[in-house]
């Protein structure tokens, strides 16, 4: 992908020749290919589940310039799958932790750290400095932003996405290939679960999908093989089935079609229906109770009914003795509740329970409160013996 310029390396040191010998002796890479890798500039969006394995392997393979965009901090729940970070990195910036790991694997790689949230204001400028963009993000607004910025700057978008034990991968926004919007012209409306940190992911799955992305990145750099252009790979790790669907470039695509209507980056939160400013006020109308207050009133012997709207497997991890009705079952099981009693609803963090309170109030329950911050806040503020997950 990278073209030779005066600034770019045209030779490998003896150390590098030794390091990359298993590449150099295979005709598909060879000295030419290894130099292409060394000259390549790849930008990884996110150093999380997908970004971890793919950055590690791209660095080990000798990709010369690796940019990483991330603003997050390593926490314990990341370690189950974000293998670029270790236990001693908890609390550090992911960017610093990742850069250390990459330098340790291959000091020949120049790692560029971008400690920022990718946005419409910075994406184009950032992308122009790289050859290939690898999308390891976790939300729809950023997915559409990465896609559009790739189309507008003419950079391939190596896409990967995961849910529980299923993944998707493709290569979007190449010159003649389809883009993400050709496949998904519109985002789904924002979920009732604010973040599906509640959705979960099998720890190995981002490894599997991230390495498919790394493989595609290396193939694009080498100009070898058949990249996943115009193909959507579906991975089902549970069935261990890989399927492939045809993707077509949509001539009416608003970004990459023949008459594009999106010619500059837009407000992607708005596009994805996320109302940044309205949301807090909508939430503010939901009556809340703080964990300490609930504890005090329970200790005082007040009659408060606790409703837990999480899933049964979450209830098994920890519970505070609430009556379990998963949010999705609430409409058909609402008759189990007594509208005369005072009800406090909780979930893990407060998102699902907000929806439940909204629903119950619409259904005529007037004495319903949302436990602020969910069971996690209960663990923090009232009972640390309740495990956090």
């Amino acid at each position, binding site marked *: 992908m990278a073209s030779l310029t005066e600034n770019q390396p045209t030779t490998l040191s003896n150390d590098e020749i030794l390091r990359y010998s298993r590449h150099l002796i295979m005709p598909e890479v060879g000295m030419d290919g290894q130099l292409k890798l060394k000259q390549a500039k790849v930008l990884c969006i996110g150093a999380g589940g997908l970004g971890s394995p793919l950055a590690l392997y791209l660095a080990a393979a000798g990709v010369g310039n690796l940019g990483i965009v991330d603003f997050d901090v390593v926490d314990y729940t990341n370690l189950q799958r974000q293998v670029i970070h270790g236990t001693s990195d908890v609390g550090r910036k992911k960017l610093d932790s990742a850069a250390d790991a990459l330098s340790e694997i291959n000091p020949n790689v120049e790692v560029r750290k971008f400690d920022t949230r990718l946005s419409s204001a910075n994406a184009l400028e950032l992308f122009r400095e790289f050859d290939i963009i690898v999308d390891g993000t976790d939300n729809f607004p950023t997915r559409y932003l990465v896609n559009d910025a790739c189309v507008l700057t003419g950079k391939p978008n190596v896409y990967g996405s995961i849910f529980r034990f299923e993944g998707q991968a493709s290569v979007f926004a190449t010159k003649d290939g389809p883009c993400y919007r050709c496949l998904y012209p519109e985002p789904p409306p924002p979920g009732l679960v604010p973040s599906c940190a509640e*959705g979960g992911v099998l720890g190995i799955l981002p490894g599997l999908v991230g390495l498919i992305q790394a493989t595609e990145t290396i193939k694009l750099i080498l100009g070898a093989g058949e990249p996943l252009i115009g193909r959507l790979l579906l991975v089902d790790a549970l069935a261990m089935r890989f399927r492939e*669907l045809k993707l077509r470039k949509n001539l009416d695509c608003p970004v990459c079609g023949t008459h594009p209507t999106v010619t500059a980056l837009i407000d992607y939160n708005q596009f994805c229906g996320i109302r940044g400013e309205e949301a807090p006020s909508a939430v503010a109308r939901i009556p809340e109770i703080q964990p300490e207050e609930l504890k005090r009133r329970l200790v005082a012997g007040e009659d408060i009914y606790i409703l837990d709207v999480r899933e049964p497997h979450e209830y098994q991890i920890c519970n505070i003795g609430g009556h379990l009705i998963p949010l999705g079952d609430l409409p058909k099981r609402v008759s189990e509740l007594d509208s005369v009693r005072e009800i406090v609803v909780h979930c893990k963090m407060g998102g699902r329970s907000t929806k439940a309170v909204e629903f119950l109030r619409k259904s005529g329950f007037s004495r319903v409160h949302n436990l602020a911050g969910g069971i996690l806040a209960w663990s923090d503020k009232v009972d640390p013996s309740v495990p956090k997950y």
Partner: protein
Amino acid sequence: MSIKILIPTPLRPYTGKQSAAEVTGQTVGEALSSLVAQHPDLRRHLFGDDGNLRSFVNVYLNDDDVRYLAKEATPVKDTDTITIVPSVAGGVSSCACPIALESNDL
């Protein structure tokens, strides 16, 4: 006449955890109607209030997007497989539910 519809993980809560369903119908639209007749909870995830397939639901007949065939009128035959392809955002620690409920769905 039996056609297989593959259900992606995010929609399996609405199919009693089944990963596939056997349905009947002459067209993709009929096959999907047969699917939601078996699993009524799935309806609002696939179809809008107007009865049309939701714009963010991708339906494939074998390995082709039905948008580039005859959409819901695309004829199906016995050995065909229909795949529902959700948009999945997850990558780091979270994922957006592919077909989210709106509050008024509850």
